């Protein structure tokens, strides 16, 4: 096994770090801590993509790693910090579900992913299998975060954590064509600018970024 074993272990280690950061996102109580944790997750993702590029001998994955490193781990957190300062957004995280329960749900989702993915990927390469289970956990935890947090900023971070999981899955899928990674990264970029515009517009019209307040208007005006 030798070299193969090491590449396998390191990929696992990094993938698990991304997942740990995902779980960490769930118990943060302050907005800045959420953003910093997200930056850490993006950093781990960049490492995962870089390692896969090395192991699979697929240089194009270095680009994905670079995008994760520069855009997601640096520019996005800075932009979010700036937005929060600029707009004077309330700095504590408002939860729709207590943190204890959210953590338990998060752990249950990890178990679910492992139970689902491992049996159905018996034919796939071992490297892909476990990474996929980790990636799916990250995706589901991102989704959980979007559901259980009320502020717009935490929902956006939840969405980006979900995207991190998707990219982890994409880089772990051996030989997946370049088109997808680049476009995913590009879409995130576009999505982010879009979010930025949204923040401004929401700020223009409302006093708060709390989604609950935005959703006063539901259904019809009779």
């Amino acid at each position: 096994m030798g070299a193969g074993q090491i590449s396998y272990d390191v990929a696992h280690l990094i993938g698990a770090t991304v997942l740990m950061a995902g779980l960490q996102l769930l118990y943060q109580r302050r907005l800045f801590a959420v953003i910093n944790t997200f930056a850490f997750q993006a950093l781990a993702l960049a490492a995962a993509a870089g390692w896969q590029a090395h192991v699979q001998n697929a240089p194009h994955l270095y680009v994905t790693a670079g995008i994760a490193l520069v855009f997601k781990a640096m520019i996005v957190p800075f932009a979010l910090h700036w937005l929060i300062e600029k707009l004077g957004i309330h700095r504590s995280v408002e939860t729709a579900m207590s943190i204890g329960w959210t953590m338990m749900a998060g752990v249950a989702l990890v178990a679910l992913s492992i139970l689902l993915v491992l049996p159905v990927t018996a034919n796939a390469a071992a490297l892909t299998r476990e990474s996929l289970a980790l990636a799916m956990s990250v995706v589901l935890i991102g989704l959980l975060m979007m559901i259980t947090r009320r502020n717009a900023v935490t929902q956006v971070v939840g969405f980006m954590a979900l995207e991190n999981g998707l990219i982890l899955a994409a880089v772990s899928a051996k030989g997946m064509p370049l088109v997808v990674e680049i476009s995913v990264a590009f879409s995130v970029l576009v999505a982010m600018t879009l979010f930025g515009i949204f923040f401004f517009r929401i700020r223009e019209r409302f006093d708060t970024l709390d989604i609950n307040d935005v959703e006063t208007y539901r259904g019809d005006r009779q």
Partner: protein
Amino acid sequence: MIDRLTGLPGLENPLLWILAVPLGAAGFLAVLRDWRVASWVNVAASALTFIASLVLLRVRPAPTKLFFIDDFNVYLVVLTAFVGLTTSVFSAAYIARESEGNRLSDLHLRFYHAMYQAFLFTMLLALSANNTGVMWVAVEAATLTTVLMVSLYRTREAIEAAWKYFILCSVGIGLALFGTILVYLAAQPVMGDGADSMAWTEMMRRAAEFQPDLLNLAFVFVLVGYGTKVGLAPLHAWLPDAHAEGPTPISAVLSGLLLNVALYALLRFKMLLSANGQTLSPGPLLVVMGLSSLFLSAFMLYRRGDIKRLFAYSSIEHMGLITFAFGMGGPLANFAGLLHMTMHSLTKSAIFFAVGIISQNEGTKRIADIRGLTMSHPVLGWGFVLAVLAIAGLPPMGVFMSEFLVLGSTFSRQPLLALPLAIALLLAFGALISRLQMMAFGEPPPRSAVQSHAGRASSILALTPLWLHMALVLMAGLYLPAPLVAWFHTVARMLG
């Protein structure tokens, strides 16, 4: 041979024109200052795209790594280009009247026209993509362009609608991407690394060797992901808001085209599962989601006070019916589903054309404030009546025929399922007819007579697409040309 190597179509290939014209037009419209000229450039570009799509009916280009045209998607490409063209004509009239009221600044209008073409481009790209990744990127881009257009009016409601649409559909397409990656992982051990393992044409050939469990898991993600964009219950929450708050031409293309594109993506994955043969059958899942959408929207129709919301729920109902038909499967139900996709596109966009003019004339979207349309605006009013009767499923329209086929084929195979289907259809029918009666007949409010003189020319322009669509729907109900029927049958067999 260049197109073989790069995957891009060559110059002689109509597909290149279909994709390049809207993309180029989007770029050009983004820098064009005069909105009057822009609205006609928009029409001209859409017309060129439509002509190029007609060429596809005669010349079938060979599939490349990234693009392909087969019997299934060619009809959706033509339909999309056609409705894109008629909507651009309606949009020219709509925008002309909208800017009279100074609701939109010049910059917003420039943006609107550029986004309209960009939106057409992304839909045509999604339909003609031979690569699951490209298809996903196109659907994501379609979401982004429409989010921007839904928020065009910058009102509190519009921003909220756009935000809700964006969050829900982003999560949806995120999950669809995960499903796409899983499908690649199913294909990769069989077909090796690289683009072949994501190409529809290659995957369909060897689908039987894929691992069925992995395909099952993938389909669940794809169903939830693209299902959100189709607007299937319980993932439909974004749809009524997005339809109600955006400019009406956008509601017409959202309802008539984008929902079809998302459903097309879903059906491609379903075909892959059918070709594999050992997976769980996707049919029952589709049937359940289809039926729940039908019931939910049928009840919701009764409580709507906003005219655009009313027809947005009606779109959920019809997408539910189409999904149900494809879920039942078999040649007859698939045939009915394909026909209904076409009929719904034409009729629903026609309804939104009418609704656009009505809300501009009356200055309101509240159903309670709209009365006596057939008296105050006969051409518009009767066109509207015809379109709503058609969408409610009254003979002799094309929608009646496809609904009848769905019901008939269900009755012959699963009589127990036909019963709830019939109940839901009747419920929706009752709701639409009672609303129609309130709006179309009775004494018109006095003020509308004064307003109807304003913008008469643009009214005629706006009414042409409405009547054109209705003529096609009526024709389809009375007589379907034999080549069209034969061709629908071929596609129905492809869908399995």
